[in-house]
C-alpha cells in the first residue's frame, strides 16, 4: 500500500506544471488515505531522496529533487 501510494504521489507531482506543492495538494494523489498517514508516506519519500522540502520560513512545500538545486538557488536562478 505504502509503495503504491508513493508511486501515485510521485506520478502526480511529475504531471504538474508547478514545481512546488503543498502537502494538502500531494494528498490529492491518494484521497483515500488519511492525512496523518499520508504524512508518513511523504516523509518516506523525502528520506529516500525522491522529494525534497522547500520552505519560505512560514510555509513548507515539496518538490522533486530535479526541480531545485542548491547551487542554482544560491546563484539566484531558482
Amino acid at each position, binding site marked *: 500500500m505504502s509503495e503504491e501510494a508513493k508511486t501515485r504521489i510521485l506520478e502526480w507531482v511529475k504531471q504538474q506544471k508547478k514545481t512546488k506543492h*503543498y502537502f*494538502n495538494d500531494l494528498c490529492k494523489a491518494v484521497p483515500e488515505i488519511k492525512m496523518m498517514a499520508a*504524512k508518513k508516506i511523504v516523509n518516506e519519500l523525502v528520506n529516500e531522496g525522491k522529494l525534497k*522540502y522547500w*520552505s519560505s520560513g512560514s510555509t*513548507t512545500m515539496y518538490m522533486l529533487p530535479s526541480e531545485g538545486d542548491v547551487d542554482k538557488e*544560491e546563484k539566484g536562478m531558482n
Partner: protein
Amino acid sequence: MSLKHATPMLDELEKGPWPSFVSDVKRMAAKGNRMCEDWLGLMEMSYRDKEGHWKHGGIVGVLGYGGGIIGRYCDRPDLFPNVAHFHTVRVNQPASKYYNTEVLRKICALWEKRGSGLTNMHGSTGDIVLLGTTTDQLEPLFYELTHELNMDLGGSGSNMRTPESCLGKSRCEWSCFNTQDVIYDITNEYQDALHRPMFPYKFKFKASGCPMDCVAAIARSDCSIIGTWRDDIRIDQAAVKAYVAKEIVPHGGADGRENRGFDIKAEVLDLCPTKCMEYDGTLKINNKDCVRCMHCIRVMPRALRPGLDTGATILVGAKAPILDGAQLSSVVIPFIKMEPPYTEFKAFVEKVWDWWMENGKNRERLGETIQRLSLREFLKATELEPDPRMVNSPRFNPYIFYDPETVPGGWEHDGVAFRQRHQA
C-alpha cells in the same frame, strides 16, 4: 575604527541613550568578521533606499529535518558577497529560557565559528535565533549543536513550532500547573511534528501558568494552555486588613515601595469585572461569578491566592494579523487537570490535528479554519460538549442553534412547507 562601508544612517541609531545593535555589529566587524562588515553595508543601503534586499526561503536544511533552517539570500551579492547567503537557524530554547553562562558561551562560540556571530535572543516564538550562515556550514553546525551542546533545532514552516512557556512554578507562586514540564513533554512527544512538516500552516503551543498569561498564549498560539483553578480564591483576612490599614504596600511594590494611600473599594472592589467582591471588615468573594481576571490577586498578593484545585483552560485559534486580522484564542476546554502524562490533553490535540489536516486550506491557521467551518463543527470533531463558557457573551447572545440529532426526540424540518406557510 575603519569599516569597509560608510554607514551614516545606521550611525544615527547609536546616538540614543539605549544600547545599540549597530554598535554591537560594528564591534564584531572591527574584529574582522566579514559577514558583519557586509551586513552593515547592506543595511545602510536598505535604510537609504527604503527597500529590503533579503530574499527569504529555499531548499536548504539539514538531513532528515523539514524545519529549523530558513534560507536567506541577499539580492545584491555583487556588492555584498559576504552576506550573499545568510541563512537563519532556529534553536529550540530550554523551557522558560533558563541557561547557565557556560551554555551561552558555547552557543556564541559555535556561532562565531559556523556563522556570523549575530544572534537574536529570542525570536517571538521563543527560539534562539542564529542569524546568518552559509549552506556548507549547516550540517557541521547541526552536528555540533546536537552532539556537543545537547540542543536541537526548533520549528519553522508548516511544522509544529517550538512550544513555549512562562517561568511557571520555577519562580511564580500563582502558577496553576507545571508549565515547563508540559512544554518539555509536548516537545518530546511530538518531535515528528516539530521537525517534519505536515500541517496546512504553522501550529503553536504556549503555556501560561495562570490567567496573567505572561507568554501571551491567548494572543499568539493555536493552542493556548492557561492555568486556572476551580475552587475558591484563598483569602488571608488578616493580610486583607493589613492592606486596608496601609501596613502592606499593594501590587507587591510594583508601582512604588512608598506606603501610599490604598483604597480597597476603588482599587479592587470597583475594578472587579463581575463585581463579585465586597468588604465590610471582612473580604467576601462570590467565587461562582469570578472570571479569573487576577486583578484582586495582583493588587493584594499577600492576602489572596489562586485556589488549590488547579489545572488549565484550553483555548484554540489565536493568530497574528497576517490574514484576516488578529484573533484571540477561544475557550474549548474550560478546565482540565494538567498532570503527567497529560493523556487527556494529548488525545484532544490529536483530534484537533486530524480535523485541521483534513479540513484546513493551505496557509490557513486553525483559528481561521474554525471561523470558516464553525465552532460547532470543531466541537463535533473533537468530541467536546458545547458549554456556555465557550460563548463570549452567553447572557446576551440569543442565537443558540440546536442540532436535532443532539436533542432528545429530535425534530424534522420541512423547509419547502415552511416557506409555503410564510410566503411574504
